């Protein structure tokens, strides 16, 4: 399954990873090779076989909705690349010219 440069760029955007033209070429060939390999699953007949997301029968583990201690604001902000009081500072999200 060969991935075109266009598809690699699209996947890069979906993955939120900026790719240089060299990387697009390199990853395009490497990812195509890996996809060729995983295509061998087509050889198997999985008609009527239920997908298995979790090999153990664990379902909807819940606890009572009671508040429990979590991180303090100081702890939560301790690793912030940019903090502003009790907030994480980030580039503006809402802007007329912002990309989707």
């Amino acid at each position: 399954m060969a991935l075109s440069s266009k598809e690699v760029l699209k996947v890069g955007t979906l993955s939120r990873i900026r790719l240089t033209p060299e990387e697009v070429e390199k990853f395009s060939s490497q990812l195509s090779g890996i996809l060729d390999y995983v295509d061998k699953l087509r050889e198997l007949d999985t008609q009527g076989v239920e997908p298995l997301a979790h090999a153990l029968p664990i379902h909807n583990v819940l606890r009572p909705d009671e508040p429990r201690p979590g991180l303090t604001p100081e702890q939560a902000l301790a690793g912030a690349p940019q903090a502003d009081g009790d907030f994480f500072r980030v580039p503006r999200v809402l802007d007329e010219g912002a990309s989707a």
Partner: protein
Amino acid sequence: MAVTDLTACEIRNAIQERRLSAAEAAEGCLAAMARLDPKIKAFLSTDPDGARRHAAAIDRRLAAGENVGLLAGVPVAVKDNMCTADGQPTTCASRILGGWRAPYDAHVVERLTAEGAVIVGKTNLDEFAMGSSTENSAYGATRNPWDLQRVPGGSSGGSAAAVAARMVPIAVGSDTGGSIRQPAALCGVVGMKPTYGRVSRYGLVAFASSLDQIGPFGRTVADAALVLQATAGHDGRDSTSVDEPVPDYLAGLEEPVRPLRIGMPREFFGTGLDAEVEKVVREALAVYERLGATLIPIELPHSTDYAIATYYIVATSEASSNLARYDGVHYGYRSADHADMIDMYMRSRAQGFGDEVKRRIMLGTYALSSGYYDAYYKKALAVRRLIRRDFEQAFRKVDCIMGPTSPTPAFRLGERTADPLAMYLSDVYTVSCNLAAIAGISVPCGFTAAGLPVGLQIITDVFTEDRLLRIARMYERETDWARRAPRIAEEPA
């Protein structure tokens, strides 16, 4: 005898009986680390002051007659994808978490400390646990103590090498597709992946949430059992942690499993298996036969090539979701220049992640994307059920399954870095266990002519770690591979 030649059980007993102090045990390991790690590079960070403080506290409590726990004073190394709030960074061997300080301890770290273990450092790994050689670390590769030009395996290569080189008696790692068992085999130590859900993943930085498991490294089966004892059990903070009682793994360890039916999958002895590895593994199986076990040929039709294909869809899909959190917003690396929010994500991740991580995120994103989800992700999950069924059918006929852990001994640094797929095939015998959630252990079973370790993999069904350890111990009792140390560990300061 140097402290570093003692096993964890021996150190623990000596400390509890006051023949050895926790301070002496810590100093012995710290000295070995100072002497050997510049050559092996197993550690990303060390905490000598913290280790000394903890060891001194344990000695004080012992003097006061207190019970300090199962791992009283035993030095331990922790893979750097497990959160430690003690001041050491938790980097996952990535630039995107360079210098990051976790605000809480992983469950396993809490348990080890509560049982008296002394954490001496954080070990190197393939970035975000993605790899089979530790060469994908953003901070440099770890060397195999048996041959410094070769890889220790991965992704828990640092933990495996630290134990093999006798810098620490025990370590913990994580295994998503073989990342404990394969480096254990390549480094000639014991490494075990428990059943999924046996050990809490709270505080383990997630790679693939339905596959990741934490497990022990040790030079002996008893040491692996000791670490498992300290860390296994239900934890409400991990919703995939199973509330299954924890047996006493050490109590019955010396009792052989009889009768013992060993399944030998045709697929684990096929093409791609190195001839020397096969020979050494078959000799190990012959030891089991002499002990009265029966070798039964079985088939696991979906366990090798199909399992690798399934794994590289399932694990990468889960990773693409788990690693979405690294966006430069709340913690970790943020790019210096960016036009807007999306650009900040794209540049932070481009600059912070290494190539293998990018490849896997993109693969997973592609497999989950609209138009491809059914053909890749859903298909892979259906094959995962076939893999699980293969094991269910096998375990009706046999008590355990055995074969080589790794198709080859340790390969050279740089040998497989140009071809991702060649690297992926290192895990051909290990990935099926993670997909099926079952337990597996690698025990040293000999060496190649060039002196490289070979590992025997033993697999049992879910929540049978006590039997798995006893089966492994049956072989270990008849052999003395654990006594052999790499030459580097024996060199004087």
